[in-house]
């Protein structure tokens, strides 16, 4: 089930909210567990059993690992549980990719299995893996209540596209969490903003990309337009989803970790990856990079560690070679920045640092977008005018038309990708006359503006819901891009 669907917004969500808040405290987790399985069942009926199996594996492993403390069997149990979980992930997500690699390497003709990718498998498997490792490292206590553990893994707000919530982050809230109008209100606000980002911005850019990519004889402008539109689409799609997940979590009393921190304002790729998909970056850092030795090893081994982590990170995004290339691309840039580029960049004006970062990000997403490697090459050649052949005048006109048609949306999205609006509103909403040195008259105006803004929020949210619903009814919404991961 999509968050941006009528089924979810107008049936699943109100019914779940009513059931949850009517239920006494003891039954709230049961309501969430039931709702979460129903949510998953609605989109992936057959794969509910797979998720249940993964939950059972994680639950038993956690208890066994904890009980075997001091025993020599502890490590093998952890290894076995990780093998089971990663094998399931491998079979359902990567089997065909591996077969294709073998076929192309050895000229064999092994038939593809063509299993449908279970939605959210990468996210919930990573959560269970991190839980098992954390129990092994004695960083968290094993969960003995299977309903609570199942609820943690299957919790619908973050089940299918993150953020990747580690058990230690929410373990206390699973047992005891508080609810208040203020928390629920904040959650609603975050959810509605995320919904707008997804439906009004990301889906509009998605439409632009699909309209442009079918054009023939495209010139440089067209290729850049596609690349820029996709760069905006993927950010507003994924960060919108994360906002919705964090907002829904807040409504139900959970504090989920932030996943994005305005990545497009970064001044280097190193900074970009500190701001983009932060929970995934943290996961790979803690469970792959540091166990490999991190940067406290020889230079060669450090190169190796970085490239392994980024190749795996790319592969996590999808079972195709372009994702691996995309990951390694970032690995190489990060190595170069660490070695010398960062020092050079710091000497440049801020604008040039931002242009450098966004240029590499846009090129990165051009690789990311197309799974067919020949298409990737064509896209990159097209962006740099190296495609050759004739470009169509008519296609040029069409591209120019779409550039003009989407100009306002580009401006809105560029502003939206910066913290400007958030800072402005925070400044007004946090205004305290006693802390201000403004003259009395100005203080009164600021206080009046603050009060008006406070009471405009509910109106704004309802208006957002009306507009979002209008767009949803238009039927042009897309599935979330990160669903395929």
């Amino acid at each position, binding site marked *: *089930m999509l968050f941006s*669907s*009528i*089924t979810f*917004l*107008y*049936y699943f*969500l*109100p*019914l779940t*909210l*009513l059931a949850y808040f009517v239920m006494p405290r003891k039954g709230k987790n049961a309501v969430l567990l039931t709702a979460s399985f129903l949510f998953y069942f*609605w*989109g*992936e*009926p*057959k794969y509910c059993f797979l998720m249940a199996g993964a939950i059972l594996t994680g639950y038993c492993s956690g208890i066994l690992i904890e009980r075997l403390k001091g025993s020599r069997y502890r490590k093998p149990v952890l290894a076995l549980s990780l093998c089971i979980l990663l094998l399931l992930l491998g079979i359902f997500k990567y089997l065909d990719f591996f077969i294709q690699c073998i076929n192309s390497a050895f000229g064999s003709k092994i038939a593809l299995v063509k299993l449908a990718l279970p939605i959210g498998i990468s996210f919930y498997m990573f959560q269970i893996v991190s839980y098992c490792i954390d129990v092994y490292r004695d960083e968290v206590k094993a969960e003995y209540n299977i309903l609570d553990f199942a609820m943690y893994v299957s919790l619908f707000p973050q089940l299918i596209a993150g953020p990747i919530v580690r058990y230690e982050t929410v373990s206390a809230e699973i047992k005891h969490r508080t609810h208040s*109008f*203020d928390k*629920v*209100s*904040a959650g*609603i*606000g975050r959810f*509605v903003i995320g919904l707008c980002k997804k439906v*009004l911005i990301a889906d*509009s850019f998605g439409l632009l990309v699909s309209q442009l990519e079918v054009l023939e004889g495209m010139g440089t402008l067209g290729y850049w337009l596609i690349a820029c539109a996709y760069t905006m689409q993927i950010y507003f799609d994924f960060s919108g989803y994360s906002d919705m997940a964090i907002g829904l979590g807040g409504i139900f009393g959970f504090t989920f970790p932030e996943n994005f921190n305005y990545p497009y304002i970064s001044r280097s790729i190193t900074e970009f990856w500190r701001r983009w998909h932060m929970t995934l970056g943290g996961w790979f850092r803690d469970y792959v990079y540091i166990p490999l030795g991190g940067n406290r090893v020889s230079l060669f081994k450090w190169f190796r560690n970085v490239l392994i982590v980024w190749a795996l990170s790319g592969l996590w995004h999808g079972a195709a070679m372009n994702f691996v290339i995309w990951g390694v691309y970032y690995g190489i840039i990060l190595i170069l920045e660490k070695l010398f580029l960062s020092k050079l960049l710091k000497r440049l004006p801020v604008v040039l640092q931002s242009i450098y970062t966004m240029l590499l990000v846009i090129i990165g997403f051009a690789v990311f977008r197309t799974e067919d490697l020949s298409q990737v090459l064509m896209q990159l050649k097209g962006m740099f005018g190296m495609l050759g052949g004739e470009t169509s005048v*008519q296609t040029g*006109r*069409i591209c120019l*038309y779409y550039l*003009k*048609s*989407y*100009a*306002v*949306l580009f401006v*809105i999205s560029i502003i939206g990708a910066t913290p400007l609006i958030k800072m402005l509103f925070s400044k007004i*909403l946090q205004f305290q006359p006693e802390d201000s040195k403004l003259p009395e008259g100005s203080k009164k105006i600021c206080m009046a503006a*603050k*009060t008006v803004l*406070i*009471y405009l*929020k*509910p109106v704004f*949210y*309802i208006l957002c*819901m*009306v*507009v979002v*619903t*209008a*767009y*949803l*009814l*238009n*039927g*042009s919404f897309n599935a979330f891009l990160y669903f395929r991961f």
Partner: protein
Amino acid sequence: MDRHQRNANRIIVISFIAFLCIFMVGGILLEDKDTSASERRKLTQAPLLSGATVISGKYMGSMEDYLLDQFPGRDVFRVIMAEFDRNVLHKWDTNDYYMADGAVFKLDYSMSEKNIQHAAEKFSDIFDKYFAEGNCYYSIIPDKNYFVGEKYGYPGYDYDRLLDIMGQYMKDSQYIDIFDMLDIDDYYLTDLHWMQTEIVDVADRLAFAMGAALGSISEKEYENVVASSDFMGGYGGASAFNSRNDELVYLTNDIISDMKVYDYEKNAYVSVYADEKAEGIDPYDVYLWGARALLSIENPNAINDKELVVFRDSFGSSMVPLLAQQYERVILVDLRYVTADYAMTLAQPKPDSDVLFMYSTLLLNNSSSMKLN
């Protein structure tokens, strides 16, 4: 947190949940609709629940379609979406529709030279096969984009190229150019079609080119009959723009009133204009009953025994009643619904009939929708 913030938070929670619940309850309680008048389509009905459809996931997909179609106040939301897209996001088109000078247009820039060539070749074949002794003419009706697209920066067809292709593959036919006689005011604001009241001079040009005296149609007197004073055309409904509706008027006189129209699908005679269609899904269907495969108009007041065969699309429905005044019999063939072979077998035209292929650029570009093979 101050008192105002706490109050506002309460309002946010209550209003948000109330908003969701109102539409949930509305969706459950309101009766399902069968059709959408503005979109001119059937609406999805509730899917049947079964174990197999649930396990396969089909039930969930159908349920989402159903809930989208039957959402309370759906038409109002469609207008909100279109106007938000246009006035807030300032997108130049919404779902490929745009507004200019108060009229609604459909953005269409994908011209298929292959389709146009295919249509022209097949039209030539039809003429050669059935009308060896007759005269062949063709005329092309520009779509609305032709008049405003370039002016407002909207991409459109390469009309010169389209005419070149038609000329190249219909060498044995005489082209009757009507582009210069039309302007955007000759078309409905909310529909793709031209207005019958504005094309009398075009009918005259066509008839003159095919051998009638100049002025023979435009100099006749007509009575304007308002079929619908609040006509929402196809573009208006599909775009959901907040546009001004049209007046749908047809022209009649004693000659047209006396005409008998034989409908080969119904095997019955019908009137030239179908007044009851004015209240239907597409009021433009008042002209010759809308989408009909094969019609034959008999004119008892004809001043000659000439016969005309018109291969046409929906634009022809409003044009042919005017042209028919100059002929004893006019056969109308819509190749989207019948093959030329079958139509000729049924209608039995004279081999020396005048033949007119009259198509809009839109249909020529989508000639795959015609039964031409």
